[in-house]
């Protein structure tokens, strides 16, 4: 019997057997694929759809797909989207109301959907799921999120390289996947011996591993996987000092640097929508023209829009400075008070996918210069 913590060798050609097992169990398998000009999560039916031999190069405001010199299946870092788009979809119908002779009746949307198997989940993304679990759980649990999340099978991939905008080591969320997975894969590329160290993380994962009848991993593979993760951890493209973030951000509401950032910030919402933990949404009613039916939809929103803080005819956060300040202060500081952890997992998406490359790991240190000073100039306006 397989159990949590068991380690096996999964050869490159056995990856298709793993996919078969997932499909046989009725999972919709979602994994990174080359889509448009990036590695994007989507459904795969066969192993050929995985981005073999592809990698990415990331910088503030820049992402480029490139070829690798080998055939690695997971030789890249996180892309423009995250698993959030499946667990907390960009658009979700909440309910439908129909007019009746007496008034109206409400029909809730079905909360069951496909059972997902996420293949290629990184440590920072598991951390992001745990953060969203706290947002969409608790006393006001979101039933749709809960159903999708508990049904989802997590097949993690240990990062064999660090991205240039990654800082999971600083945020203590990676690169090593240690919890919250069913199976994890570490890709080992020794010349022609392309294989994976497969680790079991749950009973569900153990059952799948068992069905594959794999050889037990030799100590050298376990050691090689450990060394690979050590190298990744040492190669982070970005770092962020975190010990003082709570006091720093909450103590800097009038720092002149907010205005300086606002000179560059487009308030375009990209950082928030690319972020795997940002959870804000708004709802809208979509009525039929004939007035007999109305649907209530939820869609992703962002604290960078004026509508986000609209009260009556005006908005509370009218300046770009106040909106960026709100986002970063919530993400790094007040999130801790609200949910008991930072809202940032160090994945770097907000840096890469900002069209003008605003980089929080560069901006935060500036706040340390002259923090808590009450500047009369450059004060962030509402």
């Amino acid at each position, binding site marked *: 019997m397989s159990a949590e913590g068991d380690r096996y060798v999964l050869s490159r050609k056995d990856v298709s057997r793993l996919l078969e097992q997932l499909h046989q169990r009725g999972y919709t398998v979602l994994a990174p694929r080359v*889509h*448009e*000009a*990036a590695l*994007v999560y989507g459904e795969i039916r066969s192993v050929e759809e995985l981005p073999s031999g592809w990698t990415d190069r990331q910088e503030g*405001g*820049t*992402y*480029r*797909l490139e070829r690798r010199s080998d055939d690695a299946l997971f030789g890249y870092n996180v892309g*423009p*989207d995250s698993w959030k*788009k499946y667990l907390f979809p*960009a*658009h979700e119908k909440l309910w439908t109301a129909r*007019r009746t002779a007496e008034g109206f009746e409400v029909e809730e949307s079905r909360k069951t959907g496909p059972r997902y198997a996420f293949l290629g989940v990184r440590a920072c993304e598991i951390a992001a799921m745990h953060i969203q679990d706290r947002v969409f759980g608790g006393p006001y649990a979101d039933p749709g999120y809960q159903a999708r999340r508990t049904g989802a099978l997590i097949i993690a991939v240990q990062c064999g390289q660090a991205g240039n905008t990654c800082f999971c080591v600083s945020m203590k969320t990676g690169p090593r996947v240690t919890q919250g997975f069913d199976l994890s894969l570490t890709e080992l590329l020794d010349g022609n011996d392309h294989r994976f160290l497969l680790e079991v993380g749950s009973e569900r994962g153990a059952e799948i591993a068992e069905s594959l009848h794999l050889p037990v991993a030799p100590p050298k593979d376990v050691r090689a996987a450990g060394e690979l993760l050590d190298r990744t951890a040492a190669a982070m493209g970005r770092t962020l000092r975190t010990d003082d973030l709570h006091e720093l951000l909450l103590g800097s509401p009038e720092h002149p640097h907010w205005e300086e950032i*606002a*000179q*560059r*910030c*487009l*308030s*375009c*919402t*990209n950082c928030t*929508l*690319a972020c795997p933990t940002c959870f804000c949404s708004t709802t*809208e*009613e979509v*009525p039929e*023209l*004939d*007035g*007999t039916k109305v649907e209530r939809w939820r*869609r*992703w929103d*962002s604290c*960078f*829009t*004026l*509508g986000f803080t609209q009260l009556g005819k005006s908005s509370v956060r*009218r300046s*770009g400075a106040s909106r960026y300040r709100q986002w970063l202060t919530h993400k790094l500081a007040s999130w801790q008070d609200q949910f008991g952890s930072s809202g940032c997992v160090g994945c770097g998406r907000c840096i*890469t*996918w*900002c*069209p*003008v490359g605003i980089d929080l790991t560069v901006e935060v240190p500036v706040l340390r210069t002259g923090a808590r000073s009450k500047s009369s100039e450059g004060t962030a306006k509402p």
Partner: protein
Amino acid sequence: MARKTRPRIAVWKFASCDGCQLSLLDCEEELLTLTEFVEIANFREATSTVLEGPYDISLVEGSVTTLEDARRIQEVRAQSRLLVTIGACATAGGIQALRNFGNVEEFRRAVYARPEYISTLSTSTPIADHVPVDLELRGCPINKRQLLEVLSALLDGRAPNLPTESVCAECKRRGNVCVMVARGTPCLGPVTQSGCGAICPAYDRGCYGCFGPTETPNLPSLVARLGELGMDRGQRLRVFRTYNAGSPPFRAASEAAHEAGGAP
């Protein structure tokens, strides 16, 4: 449900290409439903039967480019309870607002064999420069979903849901990969209002701003980035001189490029 009233709608054309009116005809199936609840009293693009005003809702397409139209829009306003402008021409002056940057007298002499037959103003201006406007629908052309949303909202006496956020928000919700970040393609999405459904980036093209500026566009920052992506001053000028050239933020951006030495 039978609504108590059946509002009368009029559709008006000023200087424009008729594309936004066509968006109403393009509603097809919904148009049939719509006519159960509204009376289309004046819509020359669709029918030569014209019923006299006043009208509950006037949809106005096009900009004001002649003295006659400057008078006519006053008449339209006077017989309309609500006046909704539809499209970039009516809300920002349209592509024809390029004349605002040039010398109309020279154009007239260069283009027409008998320039004395042409009577025109030296500017193309949005409807709101002439009369109070109750609601503006952006786009070149407008989006038919947004048009139906406005009509539905007016029928139900509620505020229409017309987000003023950036095209980027629609791109991200739709799952488009950012063309600017992933391809280095210049894109006006970050400063352009949503509503189109992020069509161009979905086909690997940069947004060219046909819905006009967002609620709080940061033009200087985006323009600097467009320069880094390889657009020279002339390109940075021209990219803002299209359908919404007359909108104040885009106008300021193109004039800044011009002052910096961009080709006219």
